[in-house]
């Protein structure tokens, strides 16, 4: 039936059961938000009548997609909301700066120490807060002096620090902006783990930012341009018979789901070959784990990880590490939602949404929180003081 269905996002399958309303993190804290059902399928019927029914309160949608995961009727509630925002919402300079991770990242890395110091300075924060609307209480992720790809090109050559020439089989690594500009170490960790599994790592040709922040800030055209470039790059890898591995749940979710569902781009050919590293590793042989670790970690399921449905792969893998006690946190939103929590008007809501999660983490007091999402990491580290690791980094720590 769905094949023939013409209504976008399965709008008409909605039975109005309100399960999505129950799971929406924003509904619990923000009385101005009409909720996923009203903003999504209900509102869409009115927007189809007349675009004047677009409600600016749709900006409060976190795009966490918990509504979609909960929907028993297969309605793409979150997609309907995203599509409406892309079509009708406006934006400002602040949104542009926050959304353009590629542009800002490539401008910042050459001056990383200066940028990092500047972003920490009180007066700068005050200006950002009042003029730009970026909340002063936020800690910015710091920029790296050297991008990941610069390191990799030097290190991967024969005789280099991470020589990839001895492998017969390869995977491609979609590294994303966070690895590239902010935290190249995570990329290095991936290379170590993949190599330990007997594969070499290659980079994609012409990788761009996945565009998740562009989509949620309504820069549809720019997002589409980047998505087209990425699909072409991924197709090239698939044509070479290589899987594409990733470290970030949000980038992966965007490449896999947002491209076809929100930007209406066909990625069917690459979709089966795109996977988070943990899922890929589950199909490989056992890793050479160390036996001397003694760690308690708490696993946090990022919203987009929930949407991907791949949490069990990561948990299975983490539980194989000797000496690591894995505590699974109840899946709930941390509240940051990418750029959302950086906007000063959203700061209080952002923290209120995450409060339950922060309390749970403080109570467990683990050595690390482990999660696939970089913005969850910033939020949890800032709000609880507990260090947060990507599972790939934990794996890198755990192998010989």
């Amino acid at each position, binding site marked *: 039936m769905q094949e*023939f269905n013409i209504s976008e996002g399965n709008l008409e399958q909605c039975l109005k059961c309100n399960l999505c309303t129950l799971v929406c993190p924003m509904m619990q804290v923000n009385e101005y938000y*009409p909720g996923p059902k*009203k903003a999504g*399928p*209900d509102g869409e*019927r*009115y927007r189809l009548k007349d675009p*004047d029914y677009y*409600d600016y309160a749709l900006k409060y949608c976190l795009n966490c997609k918990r509504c979609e995961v909960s929907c028993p009727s297969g309605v793409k509630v979150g997609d309907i909301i995203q599509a409406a925002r892309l079509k009708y919402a406006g934006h400002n300079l602040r949104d542009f700066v926050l959304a353009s991770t590629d542009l800002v990242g490539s401008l910042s890395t050459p001056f990383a120490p200066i940028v990092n110091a500047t972003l920490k300075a009180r007066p700068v924060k005050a200006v950002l807060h009042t003029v730009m609307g970026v909340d002063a209480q936020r800690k910015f992720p710091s920029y790296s002096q050297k991008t990941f790809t610069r390191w990799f090109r030097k290190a991967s050559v024969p005789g280099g620090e991470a020589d990839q020439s001895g492998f017969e089989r390869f995977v491609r690594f979609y590294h994303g902006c966070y690895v590239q500009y902010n935290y190249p170490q995570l990329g290095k960790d991936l290379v170590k783990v993949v190599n330990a599994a007997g594969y070499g790592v290659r980079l994609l040709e012409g990788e761009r930012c996945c565009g998740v922040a562009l989509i949620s800030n309504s820069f549809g055209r720019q997002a589409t341009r980047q998505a087209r470039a990425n699909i072409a790059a991924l197709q090239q890898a698939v044509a070479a018979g290589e899987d594409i591995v990733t470290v970030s749940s949000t980038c992966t979710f965007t490449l896999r789901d947002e491209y076809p569902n929100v930007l209406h781009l066909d990625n069917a050919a690459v979709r089966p070959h795109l996977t988070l590293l943990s899922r890929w590793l589950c199909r490989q042989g056992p890793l050479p784990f160390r036996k001397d670790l003694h760690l308690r970690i708490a696993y946090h399921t990022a919203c987009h990880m929930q949407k991907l449905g791949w949490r069990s792969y990561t948990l299975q893998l983490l539980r194989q590490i000797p000496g690591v006690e894995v505590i699974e946190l109840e899946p709930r939103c941390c509240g940051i939602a990418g750029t959302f929590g950086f906007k000063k008007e959203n700061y209080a809501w952002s923290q209120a949404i995450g409060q339950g999660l922060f309390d749970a983490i403080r109570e467990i007091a683990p050595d690390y929180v482990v999660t696939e999402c970089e913005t969850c990491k910033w939020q949890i580290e800032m709000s609880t003081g507990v260090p947060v690791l990507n599972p790939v980094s934990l794996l890198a720590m755990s192998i010989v």
Partner: protein
Amino acid sequence: MTQEFDVIIVGGGVTGAAAARDCALRGLRTLLLERGDICDGASGRNHGLLHSGARYAVTDPEGARECIRENQILRRVASSCVEPCDGLFITLPEDSLEYQDRFVQACRAAGIAAEPISPEEALRLEPAVNPALIGAVKVPDASVDPFRLTDANIIDAVRHGATILKFHTVTEFIKEKGRIAGVRALPHGESGPLEFRAREVVLAAGIWTAELARSAGVRIEMLPSKGALIIFGHRVAGMVINRCRKPANADILVPGDVVSVLGTTSDKVPLDTIDDMHATPEEVDLLLWEGVQLVPALASTRVIRAYAGVRPLVMAGGEGDGRNVSRGIVVLDHELRDGVPGLITITGGKLTTSRLMAELVTDKVCEKLGVKAPCRTALDPLPGSEKRHPKAEEPYFKRAAIGRHGSEADRMDFKRGREIICECEQVTRAEIAWAVQTLGVRNISDLRRHTRIGMGTCQGSFCIRKVARVLAEELGKPELERDFIADYLQERWKGMTPVLWGDTLREAEYMQTMHRDEI
């Protein structure tokens, strides 16, 4: 106790309501009697199409001219009820382009701005139309909400001094010296009728006119013609889509508020069935089969409901299937026609020409009463029509109400009742309270007609209990809450039964599970 009026109008459909307003505007002491709720009959069971007249241009040029004039007037004076969406007449490969040429010429002769456009242009304007089309004509059709048009007339009639009594069944005509001097009417729930006297009584009771006329001692032959329609859950097309051929079954799709309405069939039915109208599964099949020729997407779009109404056609000699009979406006002066003074009938016509029907019958009433006041209804805007679109800064809970009632929404008390009760149609407590106070709503079905409550995709499954409680509270009759629920579920069930497949079947199962005790 007897109450005295200048004129009594029997029938609270769109024609009766417009006549009551016209009479009141001309200074007559006016009473409108309705046996049920406003828009209970054909006025509430149609396409909601404001004809440009194009559909009649070839077969009934005079009717077409009437339509385009009234279309232009209502766009102006009833802007909160009319959506000027325009329409397309599409020609499919099995139709004839020669007919299209004849059609365009006939439209132009009737003063209708019919503009032939290429199939590509038609698909650009309305991507939902059948891409196989070979020709298209753009016409100034529009969508009109019959409930709100009637309500706006009622509200204005009351503001100009008219008395509206709903749930009053006329039981008898008062005859004095061979003249009709008034009526006796039984208020529902009371034991004895009340007496109302007037110098003129106007019958505007649609298909029920025949029976009323008989009891008044005159004979009017009506031809009940049943029309079935189906409602799709959302807007599939933004324009009215017609088939450019001789009028036939299921060849009009109208965007009505947030849904799409497809119709109609046309079948002669016996007079004794007119109080129990419902669409049959066969009619639904026929409608869908024809509808997908217009808009292929209808094949997979969720149908939420089917319903049927009766066209009040007046027999003009000869038999027909209901489509060949004149739909022209008929004003019967029974003093001249039957030697029964004091009685006038207004019938025939269409939703589109309801204002004109009211004008003609009010002219007749004024002539009889010797009143000289001119008709103002073509100039004076109806209440609510100052505003149609919600503005960006309007809060979400007020937007749908503005779309439905225009500036009347400013009279609703959102400070007290911003809580949304019906989520599909975004009806708030404030709107319910307004409907109770302004329109004399008594039960959920009344409330539905005037606010769209429970008319959305879930057909009331999720809001019915809230609605019942809030309505009972607003009426000050908490004991009615449970009856409201049972009655309303029965009524919704009637419309869902002929279309129980796919998502509507899932919805119905859900409804049944939730309200097991009431069904």
